């Protein structure tokens, strides 16, 4: 996916400082052409700073950014005209919707007829043709964000830089917008860099993911891989891997943690070597009956927390503390209360192993 031949944007030895402190330090990062790269990470991890650097609005203390192998800052205006951007705020100008969508083309000196045709096309693609003559101030949040995205596509950019463009939109509107965006981006195929803190968004839209923590790249992989197979404890905690247990490999494909024996199909590590064993809370099944397949152990319910469509249960087994997300209907069928015993089941394929040094 990320071979040098299809790298579109390249970051090398990048350092961005604020108040003398490195807020972003990236040794090497290649962003693949024509794919959606999602940048994920906790607040303050440098996601938006990276995007601002790619937009050439932040000046790095050190390092190079290249587009098709050419330094991006050699001619910033020319470089920016190969790209476009949309943010959490729609950032429309005080003019009609049509004029807003035409604006990037107007700045590039495109003639009136071509501008109009392009704007009409992208307004139609985003399903907002009827808004063309409306003033930008008269739009709802969802409509304004559609206009903002239509404007970003209007100049047919090679690179699309997006900073949480769906975050400020209410849930039902957001769903439709993401669906339309996914379809459009898969047709137009610009090299897209999407900053998001939303797991579903990253999984649905991302072909490739970069995880930043503390201004550094901690993992690059397919989004599902990062969420299911984090590279270290910090990544595991960020991606919501609620169960991270310290253990050791005891035999082939088998580990011991907190007095519990756990099998995993993950790549094996050296016998006796320490490891972090990780399971997502939704991958733990609670039941009353045993099944020969998988890892099973008895655990006592310590706390119950309703969380919308799931119930988050905290349990203890031997010296192991675990968190399980159980669908509400299943939880009611189980009829568990605090102090009750249940059987926790984990499929070996769901137990991720992170090798750690002693």
């Amino acid at each position: 996916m990320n071979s040098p031949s299809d790298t579109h944007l390249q970051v090398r030895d990048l350092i961005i400082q604020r108040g003398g402190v490195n807020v972003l330090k990236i040794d090497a990062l290649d962003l693949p052409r024509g794919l959606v790269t999602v940048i994920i990470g906790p607040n303050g991890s440098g996601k938006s700073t990276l995007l601002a650097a790619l937009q050439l609005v932040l000046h790095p203390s050190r390092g190079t950014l290249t587009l098709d192998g050419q330094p991006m800052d050699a001619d910033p205006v020319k470089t920016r005209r190969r790209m476009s951007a949309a943010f959490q705020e729609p950032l429309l100008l005080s003019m009609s919707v049509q004029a807003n969508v035409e604006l990037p083309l107007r700045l590039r000196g495109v003639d009136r007829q071509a501008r109009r045709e392009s704007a009409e096309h992208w307004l139609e693609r985003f399903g907002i043709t009827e808004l063309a003559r409306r003033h930008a101030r008269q739009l709802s949040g969802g409509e304004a964000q559609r206009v903002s995205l239509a404007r970003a596509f209007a100049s047919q950019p090679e690179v699309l830089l997006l900073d949480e463009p769906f975050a400020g939109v209410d849930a039902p509107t957001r769903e439709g917008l993401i669906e339309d965006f996914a379809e459009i981006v898969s047709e137009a195929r610009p090299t897209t860099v999407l900053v998001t803190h939303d797991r579903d968004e990253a999984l649905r839209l991302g072909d490739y993911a970069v995880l930043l923590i503390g201004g550094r790249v901690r993992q690059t992989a397919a989004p599902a891989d990062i969420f299911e197979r984090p590279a270290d404890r910090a990544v595991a905690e960020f991606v919501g891997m609620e169960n991270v247990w310290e253990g050791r490999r005891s035999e082939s494909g088998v580990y011991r943690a907190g007095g519990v024996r756990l099998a995993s199909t993950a790549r094996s590590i050296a016998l006796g070597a320490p490891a972090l064993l990780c399971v997502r809370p939704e991958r733990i099944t609670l039941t009353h009956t045993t099944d020969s397949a998988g890892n099973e152990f008895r655990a006592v319910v310590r706390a119950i927390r309703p969380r919308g469509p799931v119930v988050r249960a905290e349990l203890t087994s031997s010296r192991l503390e675990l968190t399980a997300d159980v669908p509400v209907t299943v939880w009611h069928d189980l009829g568990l209360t605090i102090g009750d015993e249940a059987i926790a089941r984990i499929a070996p394929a769901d137990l991720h192993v992170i090798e750690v040094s002693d």
Partner: protein
Amino acid sequence: MELIWDGIREAARLWWAGDAEIIEITLRTLAISSAATAIALLIGIPLGAVLALRRFWGRGLIVAAVNTGMGMPPVVVGLIVALILWRTGPLGDLNLIYTPTAMVVAQLLLSLPLVVGFSLASIQSVNPRLIGQMWAMGANRLQVLWLLIRETRLGLLAAVMAGFGAAISEVGASMQVGGNLAGETRVLTTATVLETGRGNFEVAIALSLVLVVLAFLVNLVLTGVQQRRFVS
């Protein structure tokens, strides 16, 4: 009371008759104040934009100077310009004292701080992320300035009105550097002062009414532009 009514009646008669001197003074007033305002806008808006968008050493000092300039007494400005343009002054060789050009310079110095101050305030009120979006859309420096002017046109029109208002209404500086010479540098304000001093109240009232109506019409047009909804 009769004095006032007589004055207003005479003023109406002078208007109706199309008094050549009043027309000439009115046109000169418009020409001088418009020129001063236009130059103030050409310098003031970009300067306001730079002060609003850039951080550099001495910026605070310049902003403080601009704010002081916004309340500068016209007679002080007149005195400074007169000293500079006086025949023995630093620019005396240009022979500009008691010319319309000297009046444009004085009015420019009075309206410039207002234009800079209003531009600075309106451009500073623009969401910085919107300016980031302008760059991201591929705008160059001039295009960003154009978009900023467009975006802050309400505030900038207030700058135009304030600048023009300051220029057309001042009297002290025009008197000091123009000399109120008949047929050369006499404008509505200086003529009004002269006629009042002479006791020709009907002429003074006529001139004052022209001044007020002129200021009103200019502001009416600008307000119309300012409040018009932008559709295209």
